[in-house]
């Protein structure tokens, strides 16, 4: 069943969003990008100022916001949408046992007590939590509670499952286990997962949507977005440096990155990128060398930058200069005497720079 939504919430969200049948979409973006707002509107917890949404052929809401003449606004309340929402916290009903928590939706849907408990057992087994059935929510660890919450949401047989950072509140043991469970249960199910972790997107999602300032800045299949990021946020997720500008015959003419504006980069063209069109150049921090002075010789890209931060990174040092990063060894860092505020050159071979259309 296809979920299709256009929603405008003034100052928070302005997005066109689609989930294909059986598809899991990961929504990523910085804090305050409107990710949770998107879920709240889809679940019916927040009325948008304008827009419309359909799940299959069922209209969830329709408000024209006064744009195209008057259409009577329609709005289906949350309990009639067939959309379940799983939040950061499990929010298991504290007055019910684990089993009755999971049986809540089937019971509400009209099953008898015995039937609903049978259904609940099935879903608990699905999330490896059948042994917790008799417990009270207060007796569960965070990871256990969240798995039970997944079972409770699935027991509602939602046509669309929304997950709002389900792993965020879990410890290092709980998160991987829940991720495994989700991988299993989300297969073939229409779902939206809001997350900060690129790993969630890799493991669970078919498609990535990057939200920034309430707008979708990038979307596509996971491999496409992480392999060829076009937004700064996606590049950060993919662990790549990203510069935007205009495609040239050799590479890219950088525009709008402070002191780097106007720098000409040479690089390898990836796919079709016509000169004169907007494009981006991406390169991994590991391919960047740091020089105190402009090096001579081989045709390489030299970017004059000012170091903003030094931080430990996977056994080495990550040198940050604004939005760019270079990974070097601690020995190299010590030899160069790097410290924040220092002006240096980031040098990267053309062969390491991928240029493609934005």
């Amino acid at each position, binding site marked *: 069943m296809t979920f299709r939504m256009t929603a405008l919430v003034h100052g928070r969200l302005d997005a066109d969003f689609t989930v294909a049948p059986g598809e899991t979409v990961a929504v990523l973006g910085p804090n305050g990008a409107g990710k949770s707002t998107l879920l709240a509107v889809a*679940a*019916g*917890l927040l009325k948008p100022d304008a827009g419309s949404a359909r799940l299959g052929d069922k209209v969830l809401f329709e408000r024209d916001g006064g744009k195209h003449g008057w259409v009577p606004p329609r709005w289906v*309340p*949350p*309990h*009639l*949408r*067939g*959309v*379940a*929402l799983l*939040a950061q*916290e499990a*929010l298991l*009903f*504290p*007055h019910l046992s684990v089993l009755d928590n999971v049986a*809540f*939706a089937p019971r*509400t*849907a009209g099953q008898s007590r015995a039937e609903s408990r049978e259904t609940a057992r099935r879903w608990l087994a699905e999330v490896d939590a059948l042994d917790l059935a008799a417990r009270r929510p*207060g007796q569960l660890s965070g990871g256990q509670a969240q798995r039970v919450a997944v079972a*409770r*949401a699935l027991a*509602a047989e939602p046509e669309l499952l929304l997950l709002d950072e389900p792993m965020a509140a879990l410890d290092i043991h709980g998160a991987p286990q829940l991720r495994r469970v989700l991988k299993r249960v989300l297969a073939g199910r229409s779902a939206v997962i809001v997350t900060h972790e690129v790993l969630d997107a890799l493991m669970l999602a078919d498609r990535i949507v990057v939200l920034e300032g309430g707008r979708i800045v990038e979307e596509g299949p996971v491999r496409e977005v992480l392999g060829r990021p076009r937004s700064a946020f996606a590049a950060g997720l993919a662990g790549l440096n990203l510069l935007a500008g205009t495609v040239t015959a050799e590479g890219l003419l950088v525009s709008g990155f402070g002191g780097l504006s106007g720098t000409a980069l040479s690089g390898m063209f990836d796919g079709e990128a016509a000169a004169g069109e907007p494009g981006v150049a991406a390169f991994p921090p590991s391919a960047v060398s740091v020089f105190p002075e402009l090096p001579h010789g081989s045709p390489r890209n030299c970017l004059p930058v000012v170091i903003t931060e030094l931080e430990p990174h996977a056994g080495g040092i990550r040198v940050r200069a604004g939005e760019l990063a270079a990974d070097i060894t601690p020995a190299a860092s010590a030899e160069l005497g790097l410290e924040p505020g220092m002006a240096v050159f980031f040098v990267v071979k053309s062969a390491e720079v991928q240029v493609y259309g934005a």
Partner: protein
Amino acid sequence: MTPSLRASRDASPNASPDGGGHGYSGVPRWLYLPAAVGALFVMLPLVAMLAKVNWGQFIPLVTSAASLDALGLSLRTSAASTVVCLVFGVPLAMVLARRPFRGQRLLRAFVLLPLVLPPVVGGIALLYTFGRQGLLGKTLELAGIQIAFSTTAVVLAQAFVALPFLVVSLEGALRTAGNRYETVAATLGAGPTTVLRRVTLPLVMPGLASGAVLSFARSLGEFGATLTFAGSLQGVTRTLPLEIYLQREADADAAVALSLLLVAVAVAVVGLSYRKPGRQVAA
């Protein structure tokens, strides 16, 4: 003035009444003196009354026909007024706690008014509403319903003064519980009525119970509004407090014995609402 007798379940970590460890308490030593005076001020009158009880005559005094009539009437009307408070107070608390609307503060102020209003004023107000010449009374009279100076009037007077106790208690519990569980329940397919029945009310049950107990206790002690609006007719409107007041003139021993009875009921009620909640209301 918050008539909440709910046991403080967020007791400070220092206080460990169940034993085990003594943290820093931060109570200045001199504070114990006025605290002790305060405690004595509450307890001494009860002791004085106990000292006055004519124990030899206690049983006959509290089992006289007039006493039993008054006690029975008090228990029946207080139970009825508690039901009235629940029927109207629960929706009122829900409306006040869950959805902001214009005039909400004003409505809350009016609902709480009986807490600070002298009960006799409440009685007069009720009289001019439901009395023979009252706002609604005239219409009710035409329909053959007379409320003033009947047992119904007793229940109304009690409900009038007791309703705020239930509303305040429950509104607090509802706000503490928040609406996150209700939201989850809605996305699981439960309509508003199902959510109320299966999530909201069970979650605030401790607050609801203590509110009901407080309402019952306030109803039991009602005097001023009852006397004004319902009068004092034995077996019909003369509740225990009225009987005590009446007996005080005629037979002081009987008044003291009945007072003790009322104290016993009050202690039982407070004990009930102070009981440690078995279940935590998740914040």
